[in-house]
């Protein structure tokens, strides 16, 4: 029984080894070698001493942060309303549907909408404000990036809200809390797990966005993702590209750890209890 179970795990382990572990090791190896294949830490020194890279890193974090905040502000109310609607499955489908469409296609659709002769500028002209430069601005980059990430934020939050026992908000109202107090003291804290999952699902991929920075942001927004693409495809400096990749991965782990603190805390409490008993 045990053996057969292990046997079925083989494809999974092969997959992980080939497509997760091996690439990671290769990136790590690349980041510590120079053009001739000799060991070096020069790439990391360059990264650490160059203000350009520092700025890029901060830029990445800043934009990922903005995208996450915007997505969260849209998604939490949306998920909350969704959980109260009648045809929830249909609405969910409508929210999930855009994620089935290729990212590039959606980006091009937005280019069409936002361009000088696009529908949005037509409308702006119609109401007398336009035309404006919308494409290739921070605004359009944040808007499109948030649009693309929203389903990944709504779904975990929606799940958390649906799983919340309706007796809990009722109990809060019963004990004298207003609707807003109930939300602040009960509903939101108890759906925080969904928010954290959503933040992970949005913030981490947003750190390394590069296609949108080019197509929608018009290279005005330079992030670590853009830098990696640049190093691998244009300047062919694989060592430097890998170094930034490693740093990006480290950042992601840090974010994961920051948003995963709950279980750990819980265990500490239990341990304290044991020592006091």
């Amino acid at each position, binding site marked *: 029984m045990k053996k057969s179970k292990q046997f079925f795990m083989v494809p999974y382990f092969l997959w992980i080894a080939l497509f997760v572990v091996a690439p990671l090791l290769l990136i790590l190896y690349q980041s510590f070698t120079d053009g001739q294949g000799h060991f070096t830490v020069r790439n990391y020194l360059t990264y650490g001493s160059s203000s350009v890279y520092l700025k890029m890193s901060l830029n990445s974090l800043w934009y990922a942060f903005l995208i996450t905040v915007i997505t969260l502000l849209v998604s939490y109310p949306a998920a909350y309303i969704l959980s109260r609607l009648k045809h929830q499955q249909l609405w969910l489908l409508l929210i999930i549907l855009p994620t089935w469409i290729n990212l590039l296609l959606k980006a091009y659709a937005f280019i069409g909408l936002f361009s000088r002769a696009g529908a949005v500028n037509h409308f702006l002209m119609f109401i007398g404000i336009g035309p404006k430069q919308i494409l290739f601005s921070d605004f359009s980059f944040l808007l499109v990036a948030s649009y693309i990430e929203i389903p990944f934020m709504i779904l975990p939050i929606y799940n958390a809200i649906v799983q919340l026992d309706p007796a809990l908000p*009722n*109990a809060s109202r019963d*004990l004298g809390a207003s609707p807003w107090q109930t939300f602040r003291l009960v509903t939101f804290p108890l759906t925080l797990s969904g928010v954290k999952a959503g933040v992970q699902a949005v913030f981490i991929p947003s750190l390394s966005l590069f296609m949108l920075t080019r197509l929608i942001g018009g290279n005005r927004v330079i992030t670590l993702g853009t830098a990696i693409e640049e190093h691998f495809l244009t300047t062919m400096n694989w060592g430097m590209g890998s170094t930034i990749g490693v740093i990006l991965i480290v950042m992601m782990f840090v974010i994961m750890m920051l948003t995963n603190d709950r279980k750990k805390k819980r265990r500490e409490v239990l341990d304290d209890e044991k020592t006091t008993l």
Partner: protein
Amino acid sequence: MTKPIIELKGITKQYDDGFVALSKINMTIEQGKFYSLLGPSGSGKTTILRIIAGFTNATEGQVLFSGQQINQLPPNQRKVNTVFQNYALFPHLDVFDNVAFGLTLQKRPKQEVKKRVLDALKLVQLPGYANREISELSGGQQQRVAIARAIVNEPEVLLLDEPLSALDMKLRQDMQYELRELQQRLGITFIFVTHDQEEALAMSDEIFVMDNGKVLQSGTPVDIYDEPINHFVANFIGESNILPGKMLADYQVEFVGKSFECADGGMRVNEAVEVVLRPEDLDITTADQGKLVVKVDTQLFRGDHFEIIGLDADGNEWLIHSTNPVRDGKEIGLTFEPEDIHVMRFGEKEADFDARLEQYEED
């Protein structure tokens, strides 16, 4: 008669899909008493609780609290607190913060909150549990925290929605005593929803027996047990032998083909009725001395009594409770007093039933 604290007048609850959960409920709840809403699941008893608490609105009718209509008052402004079926304790807060929830919202001084929370925990016999997490508590302990969280706010009415149903038998019986004692000590009105007739009989000052969104009968536990209004109530509350009968005259009823003296009257001559005989009112005697003769079919030992099923000559089943065993297959006689026979009319309304009983008790 003390003044009514909650009155329901003609309450009807119909859901969007047309299902009628309650139809024209009238109920008067007096201060300081222990009430039970008793009925099978789906009888509407929890809906009444939700309407009183304010979680749902009645489609029709009035809810009065101390004479004021509160139909539109949101739950946080009502002077009632609820103990939920699955306790609904906040899992992200510890025991202290759960109990302090209501007081903190009222912005009471820290010292007062602390004192009252610790007092409430003492009252439910959980001193020293203030800093425990909810997940570390057993079901019985969670139950007590839920009660503490509700009573710490000193509500005028405490609503309890099947709070004991998740507990095991022994704990449930202990909690019945504790709840009853707590209610008497605090003097708060309790409205207790249950489907367990024993629980309702043991704890209540007054019981409302419900079925299909209607109150079938209300009264003290003894009244309801001794004088059930109809087949459903007789069957639901306690065990009973229910037989078709005929009223020959006042105090004279016929069933299983024989005429018996009874204590009921006020019905038409030869009116078809149903007769209830409680199994513990049937006494076993020898076959020649019995008013009825049955043959012992099966016998179960229930610990404190024997449960005997006998068949009479017509094939009717008789349930008998006896402290002594009988021999299987033996013919035994059954005797009972005229007061042990309870006669029920078909389709009698509660008001008519009460009036008739009163009249014949005065005689």
